[in-house]
């Protein structure tokens, strides 16, 4: 057994930071007066997420000095590469913004407990670990850490029946889905004699055999549940409706991004020919069911739940393209979706007020007059979700469909998928637009004006809005990193040459390929 070197600790530095802060929050909680606001613990957790981001920058700096950091470490279980670094920056940032929202939300809902913040941190540990783990067993453990934290968080509005229902539903179906994943892991171990993604890729080669294909299918089912892709999406609206709004912001973006990261790692360890039809169907179904489901909703949280199903569908289009452009498009899309969706839920979580009273679309009537900031930022997020140019959502979709139309192994099927996707995004504009319409073009129906947003909430809103615009107008750096990530992930390592030169990066790539 290899000894553990210092460099191994650098490989999991962000995780260590998050865990340490989580434990401190847990220990400090009993020392505070019961029933007092836990704002201080929230700020401490915020520091924890920022520390994780700082730790990731340490990893980048270290990689520049010593490329051997990118070798698999911790007994070959963890690998730091551009791919993992992308998610190590993205996921703690999501958590940070969700914590910012929670600072106001918990007071408004009269929830006074510190574990809430600790659970967010622990959940984040699981999510970031999912992106850097290259060992299926570790991936499973990370998946469980993140899932169990979110199960608990979903039920945090204890006095509310909907919230409890949401937690139980999420827990039961979630464990069921993880079992599928675990079953897949077991079968792939049977097929290849290894649970290391890197070794599996080598062992399978071009002709994986039935057992490995069945295993891939099972893992797609398990992860399909986590990303809320149709036909494994039925839980989403109920769970999102009942869970606390900041937690929905987190779980619709963080675990989703992490599960997509795992899906990318696992799927691209095998050849695309075997899972292409499955992903194609999932993508087409998710986009269509998601968007048409969202058309009929009156509740903003349910609408955004269906919209998140649809967006998982767009992401799967990039998977189906199964080329480097597709991988980088998928990576970019997770960030774009996170920015706009977290922002949208920030508005929802503020506007809902105590007891989450105001969550219907009609409640938003006249918001443009009453609270210009909320209405303006929500408009940006909605336009981005529609996919209007100069927003993150547009560039995300543009990269996805470019990947699908690029030369590939299944050109005709992908052209059809693109058509389905584009028609869907046109349909989708209807229900997003509805929210803008009621905010600006109708008179208020709710008697009381929304309370002014606290400084933290305003910060969360403005950060999410800036991220949405930034990714839509000057996405160069993020795009470079997602390209580098795609290259690191690519099983062949030669796929870079297949890229059209236009898609190659202009700025010096921050992290060189370390293979």
């Amino acid at each position, binding site marked *: 057994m290899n000894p553990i070197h210092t460099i191994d600790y650098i490989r999991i530095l962000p995780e260590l930071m998050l865990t340490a802060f989580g434990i401190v929050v847990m220990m400090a909680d009993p020392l505070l007066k019961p029933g007092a606001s836990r704002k201080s613990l929230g700020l401490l957790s915020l520091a924890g997420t920022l520390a994780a981001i700082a730790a990731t920058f340490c990893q980048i700096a270290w990689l520049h000095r010593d490329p051997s950091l990118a070798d698999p470490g911790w007994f070959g279980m963890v690998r730091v590469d551009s791919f993992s670094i992308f998610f190590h920056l993205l996921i703690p940032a999501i958590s940070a913004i969700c914590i910012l929202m929670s600072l106001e939300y918990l007071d408004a809902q009269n929830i006074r407990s510190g574990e809430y913040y600790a659970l967010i941190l622990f959940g984040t540990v699981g999510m970031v670990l999912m992106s850097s783990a290259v060992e299926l067993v570790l991936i499973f453990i990370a998946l469980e850490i993140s899932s169990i934290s979110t199960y608990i968080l979903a039920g945090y509005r204890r006095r509310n029946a909907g919230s409890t229902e949401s937690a139980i539903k999420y827990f039961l179906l979630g464990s069921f889905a993880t079992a599928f994943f675990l079953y897949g892991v077991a079968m792939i171990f049977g097929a290849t004699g290894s649970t290391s993604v890197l070794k599996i890729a080598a062992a399978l080669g071009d002709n994986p055999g039935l057992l490995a294909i069945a295993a891939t299918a099972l893992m797609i089912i398990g992860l399909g549940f986590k990303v809320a892709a149709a036909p494994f999406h039925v839980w989403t609206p109920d769970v999102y409706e009942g869970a606390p709004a900041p937690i929905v912001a987190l779980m619709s973006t963080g675990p989703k991004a992490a599960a997509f990261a795992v899906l990318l790692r696992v799927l691209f360890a095998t050849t695309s020919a075997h899972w292409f039809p499955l992903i194609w169907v999932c993508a087409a179904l998710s986009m269509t069911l998601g968007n048409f489901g969202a058309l009929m909703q009156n509740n903003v949280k349910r609408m955004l739940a269906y919209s998140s199903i649809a967006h998982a569908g767009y992401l799967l289009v990039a998977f189906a393209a199964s080329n480097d452009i597709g991988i980088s498009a998928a990576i970019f899309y997770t960030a774009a979706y996170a920015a706009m969706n977290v922002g949208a839920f920030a508005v929802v979580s503020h506007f809902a007020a105590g007891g989450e009273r105001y969550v219907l679309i009609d409640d938003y009537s006249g918001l*443009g007059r009453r609270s210009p900031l909320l209405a303006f930022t929500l408009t940006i997020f909605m336009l981005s979700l529609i996919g209007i*140019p100069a927003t993150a959502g547009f560039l995300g979709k543009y990269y996805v469909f*470019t990947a699908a139309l690029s030369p590939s192994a299944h050109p005709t099927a992908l052209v059809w998928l693109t*058509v389905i996707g584009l028609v869907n995004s046109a349909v989708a504009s209807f229900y997003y637009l509805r929210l803008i319409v009621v905010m600006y073009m*109708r008179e208020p129906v709710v008697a009381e004006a929304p309370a002014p947003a606290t400084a933290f909430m305003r910060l969360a809103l403005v950060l999410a809005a800036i991220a949405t615009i930034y990714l839509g107008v000057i996405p160069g750096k993020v795009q470079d990193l997602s390209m580098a990530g795609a290259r690191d992930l690519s099983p062949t390592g030669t796929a870079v040459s297949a890229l059209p*030169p236009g898609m190659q990066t202009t700025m010096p790539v921050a992290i060189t390929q370390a293979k």
Partner: protein
Amino acid sequence: MNDSILTLVTFVPAVGALALMLMPRNDRALRWTALIISIATFGLSLLLPIYYEHGRSGFQFEVNHNWIGQAIHYHMGADGISMWLVLLTTLLVPVSVLVSWKSIHDRVKEFFVLLLLLEMAMIGVFLSLDMFLFYVFWEATLIPMALLIGMYGHERRVYAAVKFFLYTMVASVFMLAAVIWLYTHNPQHNFEYDAFRKVIGSGAVSPTTLQWLFLGFFIAFAVKVPLFPLHTWLPDAHVEAPTAGSVLLAGVLLKMGTYGLLRFNVGLFPDQAAYNSTWINVLAVIGIIYGALVALVQPNLKKLIAYSSVSHLGFVVLGIFSLTTIGTDGAVYQMLNHGISTGALFMLAGMLYERKHTYEFKEFGGLATPMPVYATFFLLAVLSSVGLPLLNGFVGEFLVLSGTFQSAVPHHILFTVLGTSGVIWGACYLLWMYQKVFYGQIHHNENKTLPEIDGRERISLVPLVVMSIIMGVASPYWMRSIEPAVTSTIERVAEAVKAQAQKRVIYRISESAQTHISAINKPNAASPVQNDSTTGGQK
């Protein structure tokens, strides 16, 4: 200064919008700031014709920088077509600000911010030479316009705004698909207009694919124009929009559609344009006559003007798809004319609405007595729209029709005859409208004391009326820059049209031969359309 002027013209309104956003809610100051910014933009845009090398084809004032990676460029340029459309935009915006001076009194700040953002997007559409950039601006016009209609319009404003948004959004998605397809099959891996032209002209793309791409672009532009039968959003949007919204919608946004047809459908796909010209001309002629007939029976002033737009834009499309230089010259000129005359008509209708709060004809009649100055302005706008010689409308319509007459498109004589009837219909509904509003007895007592238009309103109308006279008598000044730009676009199409005409002759001969020879060639004869498309495209 040559390489920054286009950037300045485009983004000064955006900077202005930002400044307005940060200003305190002092309505008077906001109005004056918006006016000053829009006039400054107009002043800047006046530099374009001054420094433009008239008589030279190709793009001028070009600016080209990398934007996102190497693939997406910030590439702008103006030629004789786009330059004048930009000037039309920058002229209509200050006028729109003036016309909204009093009629907008609620949420003034948001109104002018949206108006200036709309101006930026519209200018950007005309100047973009990178297809990605073009799409960005194209979609960016949508939001401010939909919000202007939805927030400041009349009773059914929300319905109209949503309808406008969805129609345009759904249609432009097809254009996006075509743009992305061309990009992924472009060996240079960029979105340059010229590079796309080369890809399509290279012969590497099959005619069937090109036909789909052509239709992808066509549907986006046809909805915007709007071409029959995709026009149903237009009357709703116009009737519900605030006056400034109507002015810009009719004046500029519709021109984005015809500009797109000319620049992209004809400019990028010469063979497909020639191949599809017949049915597009049929739609254009239906639009001309249908729009005019529906306008004839409107009981509502604004709806009448809206349908007259459908009819007038039919002329523009007819001119473009005559695929002759003369017809297209006329179409471009007609775009400018329509912007000015219909813009003026909508403003005049808006002024009446401010006084009477209705557009119904039955509420008017005999207004020439209390409002003589207003009646004079109205008459000039109506005559310009009718196409009276010495006013601008005449030049455009004449060129369009003579272009169609000389065209090599099949059935062009029929199109010319039917199109010409549209001129007569136009005179009917417009003069009838004038009669119903201004002549006859005053039936409503309160109309006897309607206030005459004031100084601000006169100032806002003067530029448009003066322009319609100047453009009626001095058209060569415009033509010397429009013509080279049009010629360079139409040249290649003209060859394609000729080739297709020859094909048709050969086809007819072979067809008559086939009927005699009988059985052997039957499968060929059974699918003449397909046959034509493949042979036409391979040229």
